[in-house]
């Protein structure tokens, strides 16, 4: 297991390096750079005639005139060595300041959504497989299709309405008014948790629908395995048998797609965030792209991809733990 972990760890670091190169290239892809944008913004409508030389001067000021390779090493070096993501041009401050708390709030939403998805879908999927063909099973299938068919933002609106009616007014956003600008405390964390469940439910909804069907399908296969009958034939109590034998293998496809889930949740987040009035990174990423504010965009992309790569690493370890045969093929 140690050897396997180390191999995967090395693999993860290499992947992260390659990913950082790709992120940097993506940052370079849009035509023009922040120097153009800055000149346009500062001087448009002022009647000042901006020459190519002026833009070149701005470019030099911002350090955008250096060769690409050099800028890549400056950028990644700053992140790795000093945790410095560079300057957020459009905000005229550092990226770290712009992103600030949003990282943790986004991570909070991401992980609570993941957790909720698995806590709900795995037991229900197992139950549906065990009771295959029953009314409950068919009911869950209908729910699954509903889950897949409903757009997130609509669900968010509906939930917002009902949450408002049943639980009192202030449910949008991630904090109550009294905590919004307060410094971190136990009360603030609790307040955050009280607000997190709503976006988590909205974002988890479709994933739960998919994963229920995944778990139900693999669990149905596993339940028919001879090893399950054999275990039953030696008198293992049913509940223990279900958890120990078929479930362990049935959650394999769920575990192996953790990385995809992270990506999907992040992509769906901005729309839901707009409806629910959340502060998170997705919307900031869009704005950074519009402004050609590459350091901000790069920082967000890098964090997202690193999270995905890291979660893939976690899912590899989990898979190896779930199924010891996997280590052989490593």
């Amino acid at each position: 297991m140690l050897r396997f972990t180390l191999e995967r760890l090395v693999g993860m670091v290499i992947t992260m390096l390659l990913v950082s190169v790709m992120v940097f290239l993506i940052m370079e892809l849009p035509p023009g750079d922040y120097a153009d944008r800055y000149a346009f913004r500062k001087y448009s409508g002022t009647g000042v005639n901006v020459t190519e030389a002026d833009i070149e001067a701005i470019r030099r000021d911002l350090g955008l005139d250096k060769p690409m390779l050099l800028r890549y090493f400056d950028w990644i070096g700053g992140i790795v060595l000093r945790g410095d993501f560079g300057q957020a041009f459009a905000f005229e401050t550092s990226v770290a300041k712009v992103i600030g708390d949003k990282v943790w709030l986004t991570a909070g939403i991401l992980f609570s959504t993941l957790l909720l998805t698995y806590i709900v879908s795995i037991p229900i999927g197992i139950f549906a497989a065990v009771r295959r063909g029953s009314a409950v099973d068919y009911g869950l299938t209908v729910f699954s299709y509903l889950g897949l068919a409903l757009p997130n933002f609509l669900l968010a609106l509906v939930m917002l309405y009902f949450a408002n009616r049943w639980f009192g007014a202030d449910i949008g956003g991630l904090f109550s008014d009294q905590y919004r600008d307060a410094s971190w405390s136990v009360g603030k964390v609790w307040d955050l948790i009280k607000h997190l469940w709503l976006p988590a439910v909205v974002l988890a909804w479709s994933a739960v629908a998919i994963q229920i069907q995944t778990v139900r399908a693999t669990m149905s296969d596993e339940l028919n395995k001879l090893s399950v009958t054999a275990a039953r034939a030696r008198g293992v109590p049913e509940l223990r048998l279900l958890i120990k034998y078929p479930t362990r293998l049935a959650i394999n496809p769920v575990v192996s797609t953790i990385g995809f889930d992270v990506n999907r949740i992040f992509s769906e987040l901005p729309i839901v965030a707009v409806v629910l009035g959340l502060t998170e990174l997705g919307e900031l990423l869009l704005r950074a792209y519009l402004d050609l504010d590459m350091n901000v965009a790069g920082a967000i992309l890098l964090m997202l991809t690193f999270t995905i790569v890291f979660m893939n690493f976690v899912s590899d370890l989990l898979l190896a733990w779930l199924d010891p045969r996997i280590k052989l093929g490593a």
Partner: protein
Amino acid sequence: MPKMLTVENLSISFRTSEGVITPVHDVTFGVEAGRTLGLVGESGSGKSISTKALMQLLPGNASLSGETRMTYTDKAGKEIALGRLKTGSKELRRIRGGEIGMIFQEPMASFSPVYTIGNQMMEAIMLHRGLKKRAAREYAIEMLNKVGISNASARVDQYPHELSGGMRQRAMIALTLSAGPALLIADEPTTALDVTIQAQVLDLMRDLQRDLGMGMIFITHDLGVIAQIADDVAVMYLGTIVERGPARDVIRNPQHPYTQGLLDAIPSVEHLHDRLKPVPGDIPSPTARPTGCPFHTRCAQAIAGTCDVTAPTEVSTIPGRAVRCWLHSDKDRNAA
């Protein structure tokens, strides 16, 4: 000898999308303590599901007929009606494994691939022998030794995929026997193995059965294997027992045309240049069970107007033996 297991009028039906099928039809058999009953038949003859019914291992769409009686006498001498045990009851779990053990055809598939051999053995030992973890592990190693697995104390921590096919089946035997069953059901335990390994495993099973004084039901499609291991034999065709009796007698002097066909179908080294003689025709689908004698569609000696109309009843022409066939019933009727 007292019977440890009696099964009477066992009929099993399945609800399927094509309607109700009854792959096991009014089957009666028994097992005596310390003896081996061989159940022989082609695939789909209902051998496996008959034994699975004993331990309530059939899928949810299966049901037993009202006339079915399955009585098992446990190690303490208590009579238990197997069909009446509640699902999930402690009594049923005690019977499963602790009183009646089961070995399956594919040793690879009957172990879970994600737990070590030892883990799965210790589970059974702790459940049925009430031992603590450490003692259960010792016992597992002892059992692995007993079935001829070398270096058992290392093997116990290996996963099933790290063992060869023959070793796996030995380990499965060790696992099943470690729960201490009085009756062992072996469902084609050697079919998936190489011939040489097959012989070793058969020898092992026979020896263990004698040493432990267990009753055994040995399911196979191979009458050659029956000759080696079984005391009594019951030949099944399409869910009914067509012939039964002491194994040697049945093999030397088969009465039912189906048994004769099965024996003729065994390839022989002495007749290398002859063509093989399979039993002609295919097993009819369980959804289209023939009227009358189920075998008449493939039987060379079928009597038109009799065999395809009425099902024969079981008659005993030779003491200790029974056959379900009009060819013999006629003689019987004439004699009477």
